């Protein structure tokens, strides 16, 4: 495998990792740059099902 091929494979791997991280809808990526939710459509929050979503839980409250 040539050096150019290795470089391209590395770039593709990094791109896939960026799309699969941070599924909390915050647009944040752990250890990476913040990006707009519109640029991460797979990570947008889904309608809540069955229990209150985290954005409606007040600061400091932990529910078991």
């Amino acid at each position, binding site marked *: 495998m040539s050096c150019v091929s290795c470089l391209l494979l590395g770039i593709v791997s990094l791109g896939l990792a960026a799309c699969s991280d941070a599924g909390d809808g915050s647009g944040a990526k752990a250890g990476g740059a913040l990006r707009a939710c519109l640029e991460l459509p797979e990570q947008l929050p889904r309608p*809540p099902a*069955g*229990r*209150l*979503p985290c954005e*409606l839980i*007040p*600061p400091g*409250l932990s*529910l078991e």
Partner: protein
Amino acid sequence: MQHTILSVTFFGFAALVSATAQAHVSIASGPAFANTSQEVSFGVGHGCAEADTYRVQVEIPAGVTSVRPETSDFGQVDVETDAAGTVVAVTWTKSDASVLPADTQYYKLVVRLKPPDRPFTTVYLPAHQTCRAADGSETIVDWVGINDAADSAIEPAPALNLVPARLPGWNKFTLATPVDDLVRFFGDAQIVWSGNQAFSVNPATSELIGATSGVSALTSLAEGAQIWVKY
């Protein structure tokens, strides 16, 4: 013959009472921020007994300050002050020529005012509505009832519900007064929390409150309660 006259009189009176009951002078701008100057609108939904509204007077209770009525296309606006110069009443009066031959209009009357610093309470502003029929006869309806029963003969005064100033997102408040009617003061909140109890007027969110383990429905708030409210 006498029976006929009595019947006509009775049904005429009933029609008048019915038409009067449909009339309404109320707050049209929703809850107001306590201790903050802002515009407050009064809506006049109907005239009286099919006659157009000719004059509306609103009493300004103690504690409501910085009162300045907005210029209105309804008619002339006058303020009444006490010896100290404090505005105690605002009156809107149509010109004789602009009184309509029938009750067809909705009127909005606007005042800039500053309510007292008493969030989660209600300020009542009694109003007096004068209507003028095509024959020149006038009818006055007093909207002065405070906390009367729903079937009371006294018409309810416009009620201005006061809420604390807030910002979008989470807000933390400590209540200086108990709150029994959560809908009245939190109708525009996404959710209200007190401890592990939560309330929302949104039926979908309310359903989730009931479905979430460890959370119970919030139905009232005691004096001194600390609450989180998300707007």
